[in-house]
Each structure stands twice: as structure tokens, then as C-alpha cells.
């Protein structure tokens, strides 16, 4: 780890010194603005590789099962986006976004093998190194955590495709989606008589919330919502309608509930961990209205009161 850091620092300083030298010579010889600008900025290369690569991030590790309250060994699948924003002769800059966690990375690009080696800063326990190969429009490879004991799946594979993020207010959940929220089961302890022993036994049943088809009918990015539209909706419906706005703007959800719903679509590309400033005025008003009704449902739906 330390050696890695040292290597990176030396790479960086070498690059810096090289830059500095150029600046010094042009300063002394020419006064032209364009000449100075050219040599002060490091030239960018391979601009055609810039963009957002999104796809599957899978790894073997311990997974928590909500229903049995246990951990088991299995393969964990997530959706990840790698944003490559700048490539120079010596470095690559960009960001990774997964589970609402946005981390910058810096690395190198090997022209011959067309592979990127990208490192996240290392000051977060989930940071690691990406080693991915570029084949036409896809990036495939793997990721390894710097700190193997602090993540559930320290080794993961990546299969990403370059996608253009475009905001489209028409995007909705697909009508064939699974509308069950598996992440928040409600446990019920139910009694039954065991046929063999004749004793009363307990078992815990899990009930999950399910959304209705209202989520296919209301679009908070296209129509101004009224109280009347929302009054008879369940809390989960309203949460989905509200979060669809954020999904359309490329928000990377921290809650697995919403990731599960929107990753079922083919248009959802997580590109940012904060899109609040991108919302249109109408979307902001709709979100405020939805929040009010969601809070009311949270507090009042099953309690003594109206």
C-alpha cells in the first residue's frame, strides 16, 4: 500500500516537474498568450474514451438475508458507473459511483493493452483498485479492495458498457417490473399446533410491501401533482413516484429498496450522488408535496387518529 502511494506520488511529481519545466522556458522566451496556455495545460488524449461506463459489479462474499436474519455466502450484484473525465499522457481522472457512494479515482492508461488501472484515494474503507480492459465500447475487468477485511466482497468483477446519460422526463418503471420491496419485510410471529408433538409452536412470517400500478400512471417530472392525486396512494407508491424524479436525473440511490426498483429498467444510469440542483421547479414542488404526504403516511396510516 505504502509502495503504491509512493509510486503514485513519484508519478505525479514527475508529471508536475515536466509541466513546470515547459512553463519556465516559454515564459522566458515568448509573450504570446496562446503559446503560454498551450504549455501550461497538459494535453488531453483519447478524448473519445471519455464518458460514463455503466453495468454490473459482482462479487462473492457474505450477503445478509432480511427474512432469515442471517448471513450466507453468495454472489452480490450491484450496478456501478465509472465516469472517465480526463485522460492525459500520464494519468486518468474520473469517478466511480456505486450504492450512492461517489469516489474519485486516478490512474493510468496502457495504450498497448488498452487497460486502465484506476485507484480510489484510499481514505475510505471501501476504496480499492480497478483494473479494466477497454474493448470497443465496453470495460471489463475486476476490482480489489485495499482493505480486504473491511468489505463484505473484497474482490469484484466488472462488465460495463459506455452509455450516454440523457435526462428524459418520460422515463418510467417498466410495467413488467417486480413491484415488491424485499428490503423492508415486516415480521409476524404466528402460532400453530405442531401435528406430531401436539405442542404450540411459533414461526416468524415475513410480509413485504408491494407497490400498485399507480407508479406507472403518475409522472412527477411531467405533470403538476395535486393532493387529490396522492391522497389514496400507499406510502411505497409515493416513495417510488418521488424517487423516479431523482432516478431520471441519474441519482445513485443509497437505499437498496430504490436501487432494486430502478435497476430493473434499462434507462437508469447512476451518475451522481446529489442531483438536487438539477430538478426543475415543477419537480421540486412535486417532491415537496410527495414528502408531505409520505411523512403523513409514515406517522398516521396505522395509528389511532384520522
Amino acid at each position, binding site marked *: 500500500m505504502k509502495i503504491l502511494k509512493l509510486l503514485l506520488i513519484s508519478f505525479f511529481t514527475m508529471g508536475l516537474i515536466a509541466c513546470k519545466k515547459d512553463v519556465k522556458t516559454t515564459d522566458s522566451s515568448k509573450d504570446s498568450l496562446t503559446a503560454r496556455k498551450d504549455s501550461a495545460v497538459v494535453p488531453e488524449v483519447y478524448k473519445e474514451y471519455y464518458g460514463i461506463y455503466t453495468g454490473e459489479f459482482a462479487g462473492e462474499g457474505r450477503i445478509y438475508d432480511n427474512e432469515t436474519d442471517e448471513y450466507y455466502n453468495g454472489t452480490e450484484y450491484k450496478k456501478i458507473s465509472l465516469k472517465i473525465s480526463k485522460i492525459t499522457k500520464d494519468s486518468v481522472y474520473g469517478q466511480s459511483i456505486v450504492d450512492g457512494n461517489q469516489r474519485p479515482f486516478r490512474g493510468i492508461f496502457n495504450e498497448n493493452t488498452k487497460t486502465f488501472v484506476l485507484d480510489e484515494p484510499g481514505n475510505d474503507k471501501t476504496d480499492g483498485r480497478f483494473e479494466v480492459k477497454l474493448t470497443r465500447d465496453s470495460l471489463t475487468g475486476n476490482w480489489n479492495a485495499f482493505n480486504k477485511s473491511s468489505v463484505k466482497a473484497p474482490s469484484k468483477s466488472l462488465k460495463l458498457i459506455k452509455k450516454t446519460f440523457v435526462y428524459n422526463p418520460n422515463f418510467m418503471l417498466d410495467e413488467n417490473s417486480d413491484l415488491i420491496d424485499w428490503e423492508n419485510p415486516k415480521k409476524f410471529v404466528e402460532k400453530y399446533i405442531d401435528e406430531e408433538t401436539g405442542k404450540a409452536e411459533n414461526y416468524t412470517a415475513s410480509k413485504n410491501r408491494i407497490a400498485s400500478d399507480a407508479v406507472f400512471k403518475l409522472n412527477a417530472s411531467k405533470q403538476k401533482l395535486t393532493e387529490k392525486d396522492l391522497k389514496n396512494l400507499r406510502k411505497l407508491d409515493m416513495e417510488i413516484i418521488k424517487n423516479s424524479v431523482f432516478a431520471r436525473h441519474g441519482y445513485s440511490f443509497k437505499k437498496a429498496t430504490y436501487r432494486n426498483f430502478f435497476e430493473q429498467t434499462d434507462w437508469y444510469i447512476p451518475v451522481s450522488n446529489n442531483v438536487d440542483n438539477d430538478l426543475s421547479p415543477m419537480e421540486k414542488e412535486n417532491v415537496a408535496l410527495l414528502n408531505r404526504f409520505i411523512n403523513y403516511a409514515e406517522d398516521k396510516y396505522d395509528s*389511532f387518529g384520522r
Partner: protein
Amino acid sequence: MYFAKKNTSLFFKILLIIGFGYFFWLMLTITMEYIPFNTEVSFLMIKQTEVRQRPEYLSFFYVHVYTSIFVLLFGFLAILRKDFGLKNFHRNAGKIYIFLILLLAAPSGIYMGIFANGGLYSKISFVILGCLWWLSTFKAYHLARQKKFKAHKQWMWRSFALTVSAITLRMWKVIIVYLFHPNPMDVYQIISWLGWIPNFILIEYLITKKLI
């Protein structure tokens, strides 16, 4: 046999008093949410359309919220029919009950019923409830003035049964949501009728059987 009967009757009376005490306490905690005055608190969170479009809505709403808790309290104390060592307590508690309903709680309730959640069926239910509440209370008052106390007692039980619908409506809501988890307005449409009709039927039955 008589002793056993009297004991069970006393037992049920105590049970009802304790039950009422518990639910009165719950209603009090709900009323407290509306102190201090706030245009967006609790139930008003889903009535902002009415609050913004009708300048008088909040006045009617808060009159109803602030008076109804006293209506429950004084109605309960009056119907116990005891003076608690104070002169004319039953009469004075009754006067407060009648005054608050006829002038404040019932008219404001009818107004809010017109804008009730849950569509036309809920609105109809609450407006009918409000009118029956006003009329039964007025009739009971009038009969007391005429010193026709047996009839006064029957009409006051009708009035109080409708007063208590505030509690029974909320009880049904908890039960129905727990059992069936319907959509919120679907629940509301059901409880807007279920909240008072069984109360009404029960009292009519007891009056017919000459138990009141």
C-alpha cells in the same frame, strides 16, 4: 341472583368508565398536536388544498379541534348523572356540553364534512352525522327545559352516542388497517360510516328495549 346482576352491571359500568378514560386520553394527545396554532400540522398536512383555497377553513377547523375535547369531557361527566358533591353539577356540565355543540362543534363539523376526504360518500356521511348530532342535542336540551326528563335522557344518549363516534371512528381505523391494509382513502370511506352507524343503532336498540 339480584346481587350477581347488580355486580355485573357495576362491573360493566367501571369497565366503560376506564375504557372511556383511556380513549379520552388518546383524543387529548391528538388535540395537543394542534397546540400551538399551525397551518400545516398533523391532519392539515393533507388538507393544504382547502387551507389555501378557503380562507375560513382554518377557523372552522381549529374551532372544532379546540372545542371537541371539552365536548367529550363534559358530555361524559354529565351522562354519569352524578353531582360529585357540587351543586347542580349535572345541569351545568350539561349546559356547557349543549352550548359547545350547538354553537361551535356541530356547525364547524358540518362545514368540514362538506370538504371531507374520501370522496362524495364520506362527505354525505359526515354532513348527516353533523346534522343528527346538532338535532339530537337540541332536542335533548329542549326536553330538559320542558322538564320532560325521561325523554331528555333518551335524546341525550343519542347525542352522546354520536359524540363518541369521534372515538369509535378512530378505533375502527386501527382495526381495519391492521387486518386489511387498504389504501388510506378506502379506509376513510368505510370508517366515515362505520364510525357512527353502529353507535346509533345500539342506542336505538337500548331505547326500544327500555334499557335507557
